[in-house]
Protein backbone atom coordinates (compact mmCIF):
# COMPACT_ATOMS: atom_id res chain seq x y z
CA UNK A 1 0.00 0.00 0.00
CA UNK A 2 1.60 3.21 -1.11
CA UNK A 3 1.21 6.19 1.19
CA UNK A 4 1.17 9.76 -0.04
CA UNK A 5 3.82 11.19 2.27
CA UNK A 6 6.86 9.73 4.03
CA UNK A 7 6.38 8.82 7.63
CA UNK A 8 9.69 10.48 8.45
CA UNK A 9 12.47 12.28 6.66
CA UNK A 10 15.74 10.75 5.53
CA UNK A 11 17.54 12.88 8.11
CA UNK A 12 15.37 11.51 10.88
CA UNK A 13 15.94 7.99 9.65
CA UNK A 14 19.70 8.44 9.66
CA UNK A 15 19.61 10.06 13.08
CA UNK A 16 17.53 7.18 14.41
CA UNK A 17 19.93 4.60 12.93
CA UNK A 18 22.93 6.40 14.39
CA UNK A 19 21.36 6.94 17.78
CA UNK A 20 19.90 3.46 17.96
CA UNK A 21 23.10 1.65 17.11
CA UNK A 22 25.09 3.87 19.44
CA UNK A 23 22.62 3.01 22.22
CA UNK A 24 23.09 -0.69 21.50
CA UNK A 25 26.87 -0.25 21.71
CA UNK A 26 26.50 1.45 25.08
CA UNK A 27 24.09 -1.26 26.21
CA UNK A 28 26.73 -3.94 25.69
CA UNK A 29 29.01 -2.08 28.10
CA UNK A 30 26.33 -2.11 30.79
CA UNK A 31 26.58 -5.85 31.45
CA UNK A 32 30.33 -6.00 32.29
CA UNK A 33 30.05 -2.85 34.41
CA UNK A 34 27.07 -4.20 36.33
CA UNK A 35 28.78 -7.57 36.84
CA UNK A 36 31.85 -5.81 38.18
CA UNK A 37 29.96 -3.47 40.49
CA UNK A 38 27.61 -6.19 41.83
CA UNK A 39 29.91 -9.10 42.56
CA UNK A 40 28.31 -12.49 43.29
CA UNK A 41 28.13 -13.32 46.93
CA UNK A 42 26.87 -16.60 48.11
CA UNK A 43 26.50 -17.85 51.60
CA UNK A 44 28.30 -21.06 52.36
CA UNK A 45 26.25 -24.22 51.92
CA UNK A 46 27.93 -25.79 54.89
CA UNK A 47 30.21 -24.90 57.76
CA UNK A 48 32.09 -27.47 59.85
CA UNK A 49 32.99 -26.77 63.46
CA UNK A 50 35.40 -28.88 65.55
CA UNK A 51 33.34 -30.86 68.07
CA UNK A 52 35.96 -30.51 70.78
CA UNK A 53 35.53 -26.77 71.06
CA UNK A 54 31.77 -26.99 71.47
CA UNK A 55 31.37 -30.10 73.60
CA UNK A 56 31.59 -28.22 76.89
CA UNK A 57 28.55 -26.04 76.31
CA UNK A 58 26.04 -26.00 79.17
CA UNK A 59 22.29 -26.09 78.43
CA UNK A 60 20.67 -22.76 77.63
CA UNK A 61 23.94 -21.24 76.45
CA UNK A 62 25.04 -20.07 73.01
CA UNK A 63 28.25 -19.76 71.04
CA UNK A 64 28.89 -17.75 67.91
CA UNK A 65 30.40 -19.15 64.74
CA UNK A 66 31.06 -17.60 61.32
CA UNK A 67 28.43 -18.31 58.66
CA UNK A 68 30.14 -16.78 55.63
CA UNK A 69 30.11 -13.04 56.27
CA UNK A 70 27.28 -13.28 58.77
CA UNK A 71 27.35 -14.35 62.43
CA UNK A 72 25.80 -17.72 63.26
CA UNK A 73 24.63 -18.71 66.71
CA UNK A 74 24.82 -22.26 68.07
CA UNK A 75 22.48 -22.95 71.01
CA UNK A 76 22.60 -25.86 73.40
CA UNK A 77 19.02 -26.66 74.33
CA UNK A 78 17.82 -28.03 77.68
CA UNK A 79 17.33 -31.51 76.24
CA UNK A 80 20.95 -31.61 75.05
CA UNK A 81 20.23 -30.95 71.41
CA UNK A 82 21.90 -28.21 69.38
CA UNK A 83 20.11 -25.58 67.33
CA UNK A 84 21.75 -23.21 64.91
CA UNK A 85 20.46 -19.91 63.59
CA UNK A 86 21.75 -17.12 61.43
CA UNK A 87 22.16 -14.45 64.11
CA UNK A 88 20.88 -11.64 61.91
CA UNK A 89 17.65 -9.87 62.76
CA UNK A 90 14.99 -10.27 60.07
CA UNK A 91 13.98 -6.61 60.50
CA UNK A 92 16.99 -4.57 59.37
CA UNK A 93 20.01 -6.85 59.56
CA UNK A 94 21.43 -6.04 63.01
CA UNK A 95 23.15 -8.86 64.89
CA UNK A 96 21.05 -10.46 67.61
CA UNK A 97 22.11 -11.72 71.01
CA UNK A 98 20.71 -14.43 73.34
CA UNK A 99 19.53 -13.56 76.83
CA UNK A 100 19.65 -16.85 78.78
CA UNK A 101 17.71 -15.61 81.81
CA UNK A 102 14.82 -14.57 79.61
CA UNK A 103 15.32 -17.45 77.15
CA UNK A 104 14.91 -15.06 74.28
CA UNK A 105 16.91 -13.70 71.38
CA UNK A 106 17.06 -9.91 71.43
CA UNK A 107 17.87 -7.34 68.78
CA UNK A 108 18.99 -4.08 70.37
CA UNK A 109 18.54 -1.93 67.27
CA UNK A 110 14.75 -1.66 67.38
CA UNK A 111 13.77 -3.83 70.32
CA UNK A 112 13.10 -7.03 68.43
CA UNK A 113 12.38 -10.21 70.38
CA UNK A 114 12.53 -13.89 69.38
CA UNK A 115 11.80 -16.91 71.57
CA UNK A 116 14.37 -19.66 72.17
CA UNK A 117 13.28 -21.45 68.99
CA UNK A 118 13.88 -18.28 66.97
CA UNK A 119 10.22 -17.41 66.46
CA UNK A 120 9.57 -13.65 66.31
CA UNK A 121 7.46 -12.72 69.31
CA UNK A 122 7.83 -8.98 69.84
CA UNK A 123 8.91 -5.80 68.15
CA UNK A 124 9.29 -5.12 64.44
CA UNK A 125 10.93 -8.37 63.15
CA UNK A 126 8.58 -9.74 60.47
CA UNK A 127 9.92 -13.30 60.31
CA UNK A 128 11.57 -15.84 62.63
CA UNK A 129 15.34 -16.13 62.74
CA UNK A 130 16.68 -18.23 59.88
CA UNK A 131 17.44 -21.66 61.26
CA UNK A 132 20.18 -23.98 60.04
CA UNK A 133 20.47 -27.78 60.10
CA UNK A 134 22.88 -29.31 62.62
CA UNK A 135 24.49 -32.75 62.21
CA UNK A 136 26.99 -34.16 64.66
CA UNK A 137 29.66 -36.61 63.58
CA UNK A 138 32.56 -38.15 65.46
CA UNK A 139 34.77 -35.13 65.48
CA UNK A 140 32.79 -32.23 64.07
CA UNK A 141 29.53 -30.38 64.01
CA UNK A 142 28.21 -29.90 60.49
CA UNK A 143 25.94 -26.94 59.99
CA UNK A 144 24.00 -26.84 56.74
CA UNK A 145 21.59 -24.52 55.06
CA UNK A 146 18.09 -25.46 56.05
CA UNK A 147 14.94 -26.11 54.01
CA UNK A 148 12.19 -26.17 56.69
CA UNK A 149 12.90 -26.44 60.45
CA UNK A 150 16.27 -27.39 61.89
CA UNK A 151 17.15 -30.98 62.53
CA UNK A 152 18.32 -30.90 66.10
CA UNK A 153 20.72 -33.62 67.03
CA UNK A 154 21.84 -34.70 70.43
CA UNK A 155 25.41 -34.03 71.38
Amino acid at each position, binding site marked *: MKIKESLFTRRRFLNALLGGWFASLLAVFVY*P*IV*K*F*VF*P*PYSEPDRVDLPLAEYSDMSPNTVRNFPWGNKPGILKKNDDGTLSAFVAVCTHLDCNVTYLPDQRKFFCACHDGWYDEKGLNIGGPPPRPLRSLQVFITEDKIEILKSGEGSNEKTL
Partner: protein
Amino acid sequence: MKKPYEWFEERFGITAIMSFLTNKTIPQHKHTVWYYTGSAILLFFVIQMITGFMLIFYYKPTLELANASVLRIMNDVPLGWVIRSVHSWSASFMIALVIIHLMSIWILKSYTRPRELTWMSGVFLLFVSLFFGFTGYLLPWDDLSLSATKVGTDIPRSIPIIGKWATIFLRGGEDVTGDTLTRFFGFHVCILPVFAFLLLAFHVYLIQKHGISEPLKQENQKTKLKGLPFWPNFIFRESIIWLFLIGVLLTIAIFLPPHLGHQADLMAPAPEGIKPEWYFLFLFQLLKIFPAKILFFTGDTLAVFFIMGLAALFFFLPLIDNKPLEQKGKAVTVSAYVFLLFVAIMTVWSLL
Protein backbone atom coordinates in the same frame (compact mmCIF):
# COMPACT_ATOMS: atom_id res chain seq x y z
CA MET B 1 10.34 16.03 23.59
CA LYS B 2 9.81 19.77 23.23
CA LYS B 3 8.15 20.45 26.59
CA PRO B 4 10.87 19.03 28.87
CA TYR B 5 13.45 20.81 26.68
CA GLU B 6 11.65 24.13 27.06
CA TRP B 7 11.34 23.64 30.83
CA PHE B 8 15.07 23.01 31.07
CA GLU B 9 15.92 25.80 28.64
CA GLU B 10 14.03 28.40 30.69
CA ARG B 11 16.01 27.47 33.78
CA PHE B 12 19.44 26.61 32.38
CA GLY B 13 19.70 28.38 29.06
CA ILE B 14 21.44 25.78 26.95
CA THR B 15 20.58 27.69 23.76
CA ALA B 16 23.35 30.16 24.44
CA ILE B 17 25.88 27.37 24.79
CA MET B 18 24.63 25.57 21.67
CA SER B 19 24.70 28.73 19.57
CA PHE B 20 28.28 29.36 20.72
CA LEU B 21 29.22 25.83 19.71
CA THR B 22 27.56 26.07 16.31
CA ASN B 23 29.15 29.44 15.62
CA LYS B 24 32.62 28.26 16.66
CA THR B 25 34.59 27.25 13.59
CA ILE B 26 37.60 25.04 13.16
CA PRO B 27 40.04 26.20 10.49
CA GLN B 28 40.62 23.69 7.74
CA HIS B 29 44.10 23.22 6.36
CA LYS B 30 46.69 20.50 5.98
CA HIS B 31 47.45 20.47 9.75
CA THR B 32 43.81 20.20 10.86
CA VAL B 33 44.37 16.57 11.84
CA TRP B 34 46.35 17.68 14.93
CA TYR B 35 43.27 19.43 16.26
CA TYR B 36 41.83 16.02 17.17
CA THR B 37 44.48 15.27 19.79
CA GLY B 38 43.01 17.50 22.50
CA SER B 39 39.60 15.86 22.64
CA ALA B 40 41.21 12.42 22.39
CA ILE B 41 43.08 13.20 25.61
CA LEU B 42 39.76 14.14 27.19
CA LEU B 43 38.23 10.85 26.03
CA PHE B 44 40.92 8.84 27.77
CA PHE B 45 40.69 11.00 30.87
CA VAL B 46 36.98 10.20 31.10
CA ILE B 47 37.73 6.48 30.60
CA GLN B 48 40.28 6.73 33.41
CA MET B 49 37.72 8.31 35.68
CA ILE B 50 35.09 5.66 34.99
CA THR B 51 37.45 2.69 35.37
CA GLY B 52 39.03 4.43 38.37
CA PHE B 53 35.64 4.75 40.05
CA MET B 54 35.12 1.04 39.54
CA LEU B 55 38.55 -0.04 40.77
CA ILE B 56 38.25 2.08 43.89
CA PHE B 57 35.27 -0.06 44.97
CA TYR B 58 37.63 -2.95 45.61
CA TYR B 59 41.12 -1.50 46.04
CA LYS B 60 42.42 -1.27 49.59
CA PRO B 61 45.14 1.39 49.98
CA THR B 62 47.08 -0.10 52.89
CA LEU B 63 50.47 -1.76 52.94
CA GLU B 64 49.04 -5.11 54.07
CA LEU B 65 46.12 -5.32 51.67
CA ALA B 66 46.99 -3.33 48.52
CA ASN B 67 48.59 -6.16 46.56
CA ALA B 68 46.01 -8.69 47.77
CA SER B 69 43.15 -6.39 46.79
CA VAL B 70 44.55 -5.98 43.27
CA LEU B 71 44.93 -9.76 43.10
CA ARG B 72 41.30 -10.08 44.16
CA ILE B 73 40.26 -7.64 41.46
CA MET B 74 42.14 -9.69 38.88
CA ASN B 75 40.96 -13.12 40.00
CA ASP B 76 37.74 -12.94 41.98
CA VAL B 77 35.84 -9.87 40.92
CA PRO B 78 33.93 -10.60 37.68
CA LEU B 79 35.80 -9.03 34.73
CA GLY B 80 38.02 -7.18 37.19
CA TRP B 81 41.06 -7.99 35.07
CA VAL B 82 39.46 -6.21 32.08
CA ILE B 83 38.70 -3.06 34.06
CA ARG B 84 42.22 -2.98 35.52
CA SER B 85 43.73 -3.60 32.10
CA VAL B 86 41.67 -0.82 30.52
CA HIS B 87 42.70 1.56 33.31
CA SER B 88 46.37 0.70 32.88
CA TRP B 89 46.42 0.95 29.07
CA SER B 90 44.23 4.05 28.97
CA ALA B 91 46.83 5.79 31.17
CA SER B 92 49.53 5.03 28.62
CA PHE B 93 47.33 6.10 25.70
CA MET B 94 46.43 9.34 27.45
CA ILE B 95 50.03 10.26 28.19
CA ALA B 96 51.07 9.33 24.64
CA LEU B 97 48.38 11.65 23.30
CA VAL B 98 49.43 14.41 25.70
CA ILE B 99 52.95 14.16 24.28
CA ILE B 100 51.65 14.16 20.67
CA HIS B 101 49.39 17.13 21.46
CA LEU B 102 52.28 19.00 23.03
CA MET B 103 54.66 18.32 20.14
CA SER B 104 52.08 19.39 17.58
CA ILE B 105 51.48 22.69 19.42
CA TRP B 106 55.23 23.22 19.72
CA ILE B 107 55.95 22.57 16.05
CA LEU B 108 52.90 24.46 14.76
CA LYS B 109 53.63 27.29 17.19
CA SER B 110 50.04 27.50 18.39
CA TYR B 111 51.31 29.03 21.64
CA THR B 112 52.05 32.45 20.14
CA ARG B 113 50.31 35.54 21.39
CA PRO B 114 47.64 35.58 22.87
CA ARG B 115 47.76 31.85 23.66
CA GLU B 116 50.73 31.80 26.05
CA LEU B 117 48.59 30.98 29.11
CA THR B 118 46.96 28.13 27.22
CA TRP B 119 50.41 26.63 26.69
CA MET B 120 51.45 27.18 30.30
CA SER B 121 48.31 25.59 31.69
CA GLY B 122 48.94 22.78 29.24
CA VAL B 123 52.45 22.26 30.65
CA PHE B 124 50.96 22.04 34.14
CA LEU B 125 48.46 19.51 32.81
CA LEU B 126 51.38 17.51 31.43
CA PHE B 127 53.01 17.46 34.87
CA VAL B 128 49.69 16.47 36.45
CA SER B 129 49.27 13.62 33.95
CA LEU B 130 52.80 12.35 34.60
CA PHE B 131 52.23 12.54 38.35
CA PHE B 132 48.97 10.63 37.91
CA GLY B 133 50.97 7.91 36.19
CA PHE B 134 53.72 7.96 38.81
CA THR B 135 51.34 7.71 41.77
CA GLY B 136 49.18 5.09 40.10
CA TYR B 137 52.21 2.90 39.40
CA LEU B 138 52.84 2.39 43.12
CA LEU B 139 49.31 1.36 44.03
CA PRO B 140 49.58 -2.39 43.22
CA TRP B 141 52.46 -2.44 45.74
CA ASP B 142 54.56 -5.08 44.05
CA ASP B 143 58.36 -5.34 43.91
CA LEU B 144 58.69 -3.44 40.67
CA SER B 145 56.46 -0.54 41.65
CA LEU B 146 58.07 -0.22 45.08
CA SER B 147 61.56 -0.02 43.58
CA ALA B 148 60.46 2.43 40.90
CA THR B 149 58.89 4.64 43.57
CA LYS B 150 62.01 4.49 45.74
CA VAL B 151 64.10 5.69 42.82
CA GLY B 152 61.57 8.24 41.64
CA THR B 153 61.07 9.84 45.05
CA ASP B 154 64.81 9.89 45.69
CA ILE B 155 65.53 12.03 42.64
CA PRO B 156 64.32 15.35 44.16
CA ARG B 157 66.74 14.80 47.07
CA SER B 158 69.54 15.96 44.78
CA ILE B 159 68.09 19.48 44.63
CA PRO B 160 70.04 21.67 47.04
CA ILE B 161 68.28 23.05 50.13
CA ILE B 162 64.73 21.94 49.36
CA GLY B 163 65.52 18.51 47.98
CA LYS B 164 65.39 16.63 51.26
CA TRP B 165 62.03 18.20 52.11
CA ALA B 166 60.66 17.42 48.69
CA THR B 167 61.50 13.75 49.13
CA ILE B 168 60.02 13.66 52.65
CA PHE B 169 56.88 15.37 51.34
CA LEU B 170 56.46 12.82 48.57
CA ARG B 171 57.21 9.80 50.76
CA GLY B 172 55.42 10.89 53.92
CA GLY B 173 58.71 10.29 55.74
CA GLU B 174 62.35 9.53 55.11
CA ASP B 175 61.66 6.17 53.49
CA VAL B 176 59.04 4.58 51.32
CA THR B 177 56.57 2.97 53.70
CA GLY B 178 52.87 2.29 54.02
CA ASP B 179 52.50 6.03 54.56
CA THR B 180 53.87 6.61 51.07
CA LEU B 181 51.19 4.32 49.67
CA THR B 182 48.44 6.17 51.50
CA ARG B 183 49.83 9.52 50.40
CA PHE B 184 50.15 8.44 46.77
CA PHE B 185 46.62 7.07 46.87
CA GLY B 186 45.38 10.42 48.19
CA PHE B 187 47.21 12.23 45.39
CA HIS B 188 45.94 9.83 42.75
CA VAL B 189 42.23 9.80 43.61
CA CYS B 190 41.66 13.18 45.23
CA ILE B 191 44.30 15.88 44.99
CA LEU B 192 45.39 15.38 41.38
CA PRO B 193 41.83 15.06 40.00
CA VAL B 194 40.91 18.39 41.62
CA PHE B 195 43.96 20.09 40.12
CA ALA B 196 43.33 18.41 36.80
CA PHE B 197 39.74 19.68 36.68
CA LEU B 198 40.70 23.22 37.58
CA LEU B 199 43.54 23.33 35.06
CA LEU B 200 41.40 21.70 32.40
CA ALA B 201 38.58 24.19 32.92
CA PHE B 202 41.07 27.04 32.63
CA HIS B 203 42.72 25.51 29.57
CA VAL B 204 39.43 24.84 27.76
CA TYR B 205 38.06 28.28 28.65
CA LEU B 206 41.11 29.94 27.13
CA ILE B 207 40.74 27.87 23.96
CA GLN B 208 37.11 28.96 23.58
CA LYS B 209 38.06 32.57 24.30
CA HIS B 210 40.85 32.79 21.75
CA GLY B 211 39.41 30.37 19.20
CA ILE B 212 41.34 27.63 17.50
CA SER B 213 44.76 28.82 16.34
CA GLU B 214 45.63 28.83 12.67
CA PRO B 215 49.05 28.11 11.21
CA LEU B 216 51.18 31.23 11.57
CA LYS B 217 51.69 31.96 7.90
CA GLN B 218 47.93 31.88 7.46
CA GLU B 219 47.31 34.30 10.31
CA ASN B 220 49.87 36.66 8.88
CA GLN B 221 48.40 36.62 5.42
CA LYS B 222 45.03 37.54 6.85
CA THR B 223 43.32 35.34 4.28
CA LYS B 224 40.25 33.66 5.58
CA LEU B 225 40.72 29.95 5.89
CA LYS B 226 37.80 27.68 5.31
CA GLY B 227 36.22 26.98 8.65
CA LEU B 228 34.14 24.07 9.72
CA PRO B 229 31.44 24.55 12.36
CA PHE B 230 32.44 22.83 15.57
CA TRP B 231 28.87 21.59 16.08
CA PRO B 232 27.88 19.35 14.41
CA ASN B 233 30.45 18.95 11.61
CA PHE B 234 33.66 18.74 13.61
CA ILE B 235 32.06 16.79 16.47
CA PHE B 236 30.99 14.04 14.03
CA ARG B 237 34.56 13.77 12.77
CA GLU B 238 35.87 13.67 16.34
CA SER B 239 33.36 10.93 17.15
CA ILE B 240 34.88 8.75 14.44
CA ILE B 241 38.31 9.20 16.00
CA TRP B 242 36.94 8.47 19.47
CA LEU B 243 35.19 5.28 18.35
CA PHE B 244 38.34 4.03 16.69
CA LEU B 245 40.47 4.82 19.75
CA ILE B 246 38.01 3.05 22.07
CA GLY B 247 38.15 -0.02 19.83
CA VAL B 248 41.95 -0.05 19.81
CA LEU B 249 42.09 0.47 23.59
CA LEU B 250 39.66 -2.36 24.31
CA THR B 251 41.43 -4.75 21.96
CA ILE B 252 44.86 -4.11 23.43
CA ALA B 253 43.51 -4.19 26.98
CA ILE B 254 41.86 -7.57 26.45
CA PHE B 255 44.78 -9.22 24.67
CA LEU B 256 47.62 -7.72 26.70
CA PRO B 257 46.46 -7.34 30.29
CA PRO B 258 49.07 -6.20 32.80
CA HIS B 259 50.57 -8.69 35.22
CA LEU B 260 50.92 -8.34 38.95
CA GLY B 261 54.10 -8.97 40.86
CA HIS B 262 54.45 -10.48 44.28
CA GLN B 263 53.70 -8.26 47.28
CA ALA B 264 56.53 -5.81 47.89
CA ASP B 265 58.99 -6.60 50.65
CA LEU B 266 60.39 -3.39 52.10
CA MET B 267 63.53 -5.17 53.31
CA ALA B 268 64.34 -7.12 50.16
CA PRO B 269 67.02 -6.00 47.69
CA ALA B 270 65.87 -4.35 44.51
CA PRO B 271 64.81 -6.86 41.85
CA GLU B 272 66.77 -6.97 38.63
CA GLY B 273 65.55 -5.12 35.61
CA ILE B 274 63.55 -2.46 37.40
CA LYS B 275 62.34 0.28 35.18
CA PRO B 276 59.70 3.00 35.37
CA GLU B 277 56.82 3.37 32.97
CA TRP B 278 57.79 4.05 29.35
CA TYR B 279 57.19 7.80 29.59
CA PHE B 280 59.88 8.13 32.26
CA LEU B 281 62.44 5.93 30.52
CA PHE B 282 64.30 8.81 28.90
CA LEU B 283 64.74 10.53 32.30
CA PHE B 284 65.78 7.20 33.79
CA GLN B 285 68.47 6.80 31.14
CA LEU B 286 69.59 10.40 31.56
CA LEU B 287 70.20 9.78 35.25
CA LYS B 288 72.15 6.63 34.42
CA ILE B 289 74.55 8.33 32.01
CA PHE B 290 75.55 11.22 34.25
CA PRO B 291 78.83 10.34 35.98
CA ALA B 292 78.92 10.15 39.77
CA LYS B 293 80.79 13.41 40.18
CA ILE B 294 81.44 16.42 37.97
CA LEU B 295 83.63 19.17 39.51
CA PHE B 296 82.03 20.01 42.85
CA PHE B 297 78.62 18.58 42.10
CA THR B 298 77.26 15.06 42.19
CA GLY B 299 76.04 13.70 38.91
CA ASP B 300 72.55 13.43 40.33
CA THR B 301 72.37 17.11 41.22
CA LEU B 302 73.52 18.14 37.78
CA ALA B 303 71.08 15.78 36.12
CA VAL B 304 68.20 17.16 38.20
CA PHE B 305 69.28 20.73 37.42
CA PHE B 306 69.45 19.83 33.75
CA ILE B 307 65.94 18.38 33.84
CA MET B 308 64.58 21.35 35.77
CA GLY B 309 66.23 23.69 33.30
CA LEU B 310 64.58 21.89 30.42
CA ALA B 311 61.23 22.05 32.21
CA ALA B 312 61.62 25.80 32.74
CA LEU B 313 62.53 26.38 29.08
CA PHE B 314 59.51 24.33 28.19
CA PHE B 315 57.20 26.32 30.40
CA PHE B 316 58.41 29.69 29.14
CA LEU B 317 58.56 28.64 25.50
CA PRO B 318 55.93 31.14 24.27
CA LEU B 319 57.86 33.98 25.89
CA ILE B 320 61.17 32.74 24.48
CA ASP B 321 59.69 32.27 21.00
CA ASN B 322 58.34 35.80 20.73
CA LYS B 323 59.46 36.22 17.11
CA PRO B 324 58.16 32.98 15.64
CA LEU B 325 58.66 33.78 11.97
CA GLU B 326 62.27 34.83 12.28
CA GLN B 327 65.55 32.99 12.87
CA LYS B 328 64.85 32.40 16.57
CA GLY B 329 61.47 30.93 15.69
CA LYS B 330 63.03 28.52 13.21
CA ALA B 331 65.54 27.47 15.87
CA VAL B 332 62.69 26.71 18.26
CA THR B 333 61.03 24.51 15.64
CA VAL B 334 64.28 22.65 15.07
CA SER B 335 64.65 22.24 18.85
CA ALA B 336 61.29 20.44 18.90
CA TYR B 337 62.58 17.81 16.48
CA VAL B 338 65.88 17.60 18.34
CA PHE B 339 64.03 17.05 21.63
CA LEU B 340 61.88 14.34 20.05
CA LEU B 341 64.99 12.61 18.70
CA PHE B 342 66.72 12.92 22.07
CA VAL B 343 63.77 11.37 23.92
CA ALA B 344 63.46 8.56 21.36
CA ILE B 345 67.17 7.73 21.53
CA MET B 346 67.26 7.79 25.34
CA THR B 347 64.14 5.63 25.55
CA VAL B 348 65.47 3.01 23.15
CA TRP B 349 68.88 3.10 24.85
CA SER B 350 67.30 2.44 28.25
CA LEU B 351 65.65 -0.69 26.89
CA LEU B 352 68.85 -2.20 25.52
